[in-house]
């Protein structure tokens, strides 16, 4: 009697193992197949900011940059870095003109590029001109479209003693 019970228990266990193998086996095989095939999902690089077109022109004593963005780019800061050699950056006026039915001009304020900052390590010593929102008094954060924007630099010929590099940056603001 006891042997019968043992045998039936053993058979039940074997049955369970067999059923488990039948259920788990194909699933495991599919899992291995997925592992050896293409990954089930892909990581796409974030869309980068890109200036599509740019052109510097000289109009008498004024230097004008016209640029467009490759794609609509929300939440961007625009600033102009000017290398060492401009002895009176406050005498240089830099204006960003936003296109529209009634174009809006944003004036820039000049400041020394602080040593040790990422901009300093990239660009070197000099001045940075940041465009200010006239209403808030803060640096403007702009939604840039694909229309042409204009940056006008005036007073440089009186203020620059050395050959100077002007570099306009468009940077996305990350919250």
């Amino acid at each position, binding site marked *: 009697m006891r042997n019968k019970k043992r045998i039936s228990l053993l058979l039940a266990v074997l049955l369970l193992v067999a059923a488990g193998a039948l259920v788990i086996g194909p699933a495991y095989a599919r899992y291995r197949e997925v592992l050896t095939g293409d990954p089930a999902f892909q990581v796409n690089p974030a869309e980068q900011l890109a200036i599509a077109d740019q052109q510097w022109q000289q109009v008498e004593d004024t230097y004008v940059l016209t640029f467009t963005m490759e794609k609509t780019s929300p939440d961007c800061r625009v600033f102009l870095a000017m290398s060492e*050699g401009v002895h009176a950056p406050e005498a240089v006026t830099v204006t960003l003109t936003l296109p529209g039915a009634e174009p809006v001009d944003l004036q820039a304020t000049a400041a020394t590029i602080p040593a040790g900052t990422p901009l*300093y390590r990239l660009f070197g010593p000099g001045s940075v001109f940041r465009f200010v929102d006239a209403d808030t008094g803060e640096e403007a954060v702009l939604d840039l479209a694909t229309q042409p924007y204009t940056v006008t630099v005036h007073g440089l010929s009186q203020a620059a003693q050395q050959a100077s590099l002007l570099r306009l*940056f468009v940077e996305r603001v990350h919250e």
Partner: protein
Amino acid sequence: MYPANKRIGIQLVAWMAVATVFIVCASVGSAHGRISDWDSAEWIYSPAETPPPVPTHSSDCLVEGGQAILLKDWQPTENQREILITIQRPEAEVPAVVEEPLPEDTETTEPDEGEVVPDEDPFAGEVTVQPDANAALHLTVEAQVTEDAITLRLTRVDPAPGLVQATRMTVHIQWYGLEGTLQFSMLPYGDEVEAESTEELATTEHEIVPDLTPFSVNDTIDPANSLAYVRLNPETKADFTVSLLLGNEALYKVRWSLNDGETYSLLYDSHIFSIAWPYPEGWDGTVVLDFSVALAAEQGPTIAVEATSYPHKEYTPALSSAPVLPQTYVVTGALPATMPMPTRWGAAQVQARGIQRLIKNEQDEYVYTDDTALAAVTTDAGIRLEPAADGVAPVSGSYRMTLHWVWNGISLQEHTLYFFINSQ
């Protein structure tokens, strides 16, 4: 106290928290250390530079140069102990006297007693001559300044017709808003002196193809050196006139050679030169034209050739990749990086010297200081910038270096090259 399995669980959770904080700090820190997600548009402003004086001349001895003038093989004879060089006043440089009204709130101030008030004569000019010790033994330079021209009289003073050591005379000119330096170099001559090898030029010699036309212009162009080869093969011995034009404008500062670049003549103030056919009748000859210091980028000259009894012929070689002199460069990314530019001028090779970085000193003045973190190496493609020592990264900023075109140890021409390094 917790049971053992619970303690292990707590430790596991704690380690996971520490690892998470570490990963977050690492990713945020590296992003914080650089500008991310940005693009830029760059441009270089150059203050207007005073044009250098352009000399005219009255001697065949002036054969090389630009602002550097090589007095090659000037063996003093009775007929040619003096060379006159004239620098004409450009019409556009006549200074206009503009009287600006004083602001109303500005008071005129009298100079203090004893203070020297500089003479504001707009026609004032200054010419200073700086001979090296050896040059003074062989050459004197006298300058005569008038309202219309500066005349430099170069006189050989050494009685013996021999020169065993290279000499150089430097003349600084400040006149009518012009400011520049002329350098007169005399190379040694005699049996013991040989000009620098021109094998490199000879290797670019074109293949001469039989041509039955009176003369032809070979289209063999060497853009790297801005050389064009004009092949002339007259049926009879004839003199040629070659004129060089850029559009409707005359093209100056072209060098030409009748011996495959071994020696050159430089056209200072003329775009026309005559070739007295030096070869026997019926022989082919090649004229090498060097545009390397004459052409702006993206421009192609027209070469017009005329000969007695032969028709006028014009040819425009496709020279488009030869800048006059290197402009200003922006070096981005990691070093080494090459600034592409022509590094040869005939047999002369460019040497880069004296890398300096622009800084602001304690008096808020901009000064260039020697920079030892960068090294410049001349290659066929241009000037390669590289860190002077392994692991020492140059700082971003404004730099300059001096380029010398050196031939036989003589610096024939100098040029200050400004460049910027923008790299993280």
